[in-house]
């Protein structure tokens, strides 16, 4: 079933800036662009590279909570707003919390495989600085089961992952673990500095380790086991990418070398009404990564880079274990030793990830695909890492909720 019956490519990625604290353009009290602006900028950014909207057969848009952040539903209607020539074409939207973006990618991939489209314009967007963080936490809590909200933390999701961090501390030691977190944070900021659209692009802190050590978790003001430096950003941003068949590539006039081929994927869902089976393991990600790697018929050692869903530093550490680089409990050490840094064994989140680049929740999955496309095709600018000839693969892991909706995709240089 997973054997692809047709070649599928992604190309022509585009990211808006990730706006929020950290960017000099961001003023909490001044008016900011709305969701329309981001959809339009990202969509047009991709259309320009593929010969315009006339080449597009279909549109897909990933978003999590526009109905609450922006009082806006019916997002497919915004795709024809990007360009008049998209009017009357089929469009769809996907929602799976912070995994919404990858669901939009899957929607596009499946349309191409089903031969109902050769070119799908895929957008991911979230504009969440419309409210203070304390109310944003209510909105984002929708990624969990509503019946758990009452007894959850004021900052619901940081609370969930704080419990995961606490469980990991207990099992393997707090100091040991936080060394891994600290390095994860440092990598995120250092990578973001190399990417002009990243929210932490202008971060000038000289000693990131010292800053990290200074910010101790404080349960009275925030959550017990994480500080804000362990958390992803609150972001306004959109990303777009074209998902195309071989025929589609010809139509838009882009050579294969400027595209990435989708060689495998996995889409895995966990019952949201259950608690995670093990707080120190990202079980769904583990299944998804394994399945995706198998479907591509490669091993994790063939990967040159990974974009993983580090909504919190603990999720980054646990991902290294879930993907299979190290045994349970060794992830913190693996990261602390620099193995996931841009010059490490397996560079992860090379433009900053969710902590450094930003986390426009429903848009993140598409942003991850754009980053992998840039890296594998040599378009990552200053953030470019070396892609070894014998390891031409990349992977994205996008997660919705607490390890609930997960999509893993394997990409190969075209």
């Amino acid at each position, binding site marked *: 079933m997973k054997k692809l019956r047709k070649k599928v490519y992604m190309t022509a990625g585009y990211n808006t800036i990730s706006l929020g604290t950290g960017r000099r353009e961001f003023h909490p009290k001044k008016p900011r662009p709305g969701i329309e602006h981001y959809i339009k900028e990202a969509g047009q950014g991709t259309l320009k590279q593929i010969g315009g909207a006339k080449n597009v057969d279909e549109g897909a848009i990933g978003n999590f909570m526009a109905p609450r952040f922006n009082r806006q539903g019916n997002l497919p209607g915004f795709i024809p707003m990007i360009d008049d020539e998209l009017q009357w074409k089929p469009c769809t939207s996907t929602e799976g919390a912070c995994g919404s973006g990858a669901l939009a990618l899957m929607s596009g991939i499946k349309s191409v495989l089903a031969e109902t489209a050769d070119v799908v314009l895929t957008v991911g967007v979230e504009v969440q600085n419309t409210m*203070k963080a*304390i*109310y944003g*936490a*209510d909105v984002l*809590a929708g990624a969990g089961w509503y019946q758990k*909200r*009452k*007894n959850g*933390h*004021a*900052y619901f999701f940081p609370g969930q992952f704080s419990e995961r961090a606490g469980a990991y501390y207990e099992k393997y030691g707090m100091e040991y673990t936080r060394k891994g977190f600290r390095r994860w944070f440092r990598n995120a900021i250092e990578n973001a500095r190399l990417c002009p659209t990243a929210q932490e692009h202008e971060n000038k802190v000289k000693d990131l380790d010292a800053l990290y050590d200074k910010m101790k978790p404080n*349960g*009275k*003001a*925030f959550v017990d086991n994480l500080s804000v430096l362990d958390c992803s950003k609150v972001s306004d941003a959109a990303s777009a990418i074209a998902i195309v068949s071989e025929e589609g590539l010809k139509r838009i006039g882009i050579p294969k070398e400027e595209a990435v081929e989708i060689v495998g994927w996995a889409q895995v869902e966990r019952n949201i009404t259950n608690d995670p089976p093990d707080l120190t393991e990202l079980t769904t990600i583990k299944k998804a990564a394994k399945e995706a790697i198998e479907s591509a018929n490669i091993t994790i050692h063939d990967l040159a880079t990974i974009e993983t869903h580090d909504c919190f530093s603990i999720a980054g550490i646990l991902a290294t274990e879930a993907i299979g680089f190290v045994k349970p409990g060794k992830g913190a050490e693996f990261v602390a030793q620099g193995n996931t840094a841009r010059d490490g064994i397996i560079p992860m989140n090379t433009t900053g990830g969710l902590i450094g680049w930003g986390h426009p929740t429903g848009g993140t999955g598409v942003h991850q695909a754009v980053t992998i496309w840039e890296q594998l095709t040599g378009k990552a600018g200053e953030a470019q890492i070396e892609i070894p000839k014998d390891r031409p693969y990349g992977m994205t892991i996008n997660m919705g909720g607490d390890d609930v909706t997960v999509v893993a995709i394997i990409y190969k240089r075209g």
Partner: protein
Amino acid sequence: MNYEERLQNVTVLGAAGKMGSGILLLTAVEMADISFKPENQTKTYVLNAMDVSHEGLAGLLKYLKVQILKIAEKKTVLLRKIYADRTDLIENKDIIDQYVFDVINIVRPVTKLEAAYDSNLIFEAVSENKDLKVKLLSQIDSNNPNNPWYFTNTSSVPINVVEKEAGLEGRILGFHFYNPPAIQKLVELIVTDKTKKEVVEFAKTYAKNLRKIIVPSNDFAGFIGNGHFMRDSLHAITEAEALAKDVPFVEAVFMVNKVAQEYLVRPMGIFQLIDYVGIDVVQFIMKVMNAFVTDEELHSSLLDKMIELGVKGGQKSDGSQKDGFMKYEKGQPIAIFDPDKKEYIPISEFKDKCEKKLGPIPDSKISWKSIIRRPDKEVLLEDFFKTLKTKQTFGAELAVKYGKRSNEIGKKLVADNVANNENDVNTVMLTGFFHAYGPVNTFFD
């Protein structure tokens, strides 16, 4: 009657005023926190917001809503625990809204003094008029069967005078908040010879629960804060008047104001501070204090003249600055009042000329804003003032003279037994006036 029982029925007099509204807010939050305790949930808590102005009370409720919302947003983690049993309150928003309602629900806006006849504690924050204070407090006291305690927020009237004239023996103390009470950490605590121990103990607990810093001041008109501020203002006024013999008045005001803010590294210029407090309030406090001092004259004919011309400063009900010595746009001074021409002259017309006359600031990187939160500010200030003293510029001369005078005022407050020690004087200026350093220092020796 224990602490919590005492706070079951409270009245704030002058609740719609600048100080009264802040006191009301803090007290409402404190009372609400007590009411949430399981053992208190069946009791009713009453906080009378007494003011003669209906308009003011309407504004007060708006102010309370905004402020309590801010407080609730900051302590939502705790509030979720307080409302854990309320199954109908699920999201942060539900909980925050309920808290705002529960705090406001304690407040009873009233215009009649009779409301205070049931209270156990009365905060007095009416205007700085001794006779009015005495009249209100004695009327309450003769009709209230609870032998209530009185906390007066006066910043200038000696407490023992009110105590005696209103017949409140031992049941009154000065509890002087700084403006705005919700933000400023300082409270000056003034007791009389007769104030009962339990009243003082209560005041200390109450201040602690409000996270305020108490500085004891002795019962002399003006206490520590205004004792310094009024004399400091008079120094600035005298300097400006002397300067005005050589340059136009507006330039003199501009220069002295700039020296106080930038050369002395203060949060705002002295004339801006006078405007902030209100020229009429400053004039009035000087008058009250002057009646109690013998070795100096606390009076300014310049202030009298400004008031006569209807130029008063102070703040509008929304907290924005009214025009006084200076005219303001978005909180920043843009023009200065010329009492002869009776009009504001734009600062841009004479700014360059004045700055040239003052000469360059020793280090433009040092400003109040840039150093106030730095742990090494003492060292930075030491260096800054050391350089300042070596400069031969007019601005530096004015600044050093000003700094010395401020020092002298601080020391005299201790010599006159208004403050118990120099440290208390410095604490008041650091926490009540947000100065970056205390007036008693060695910077200008």
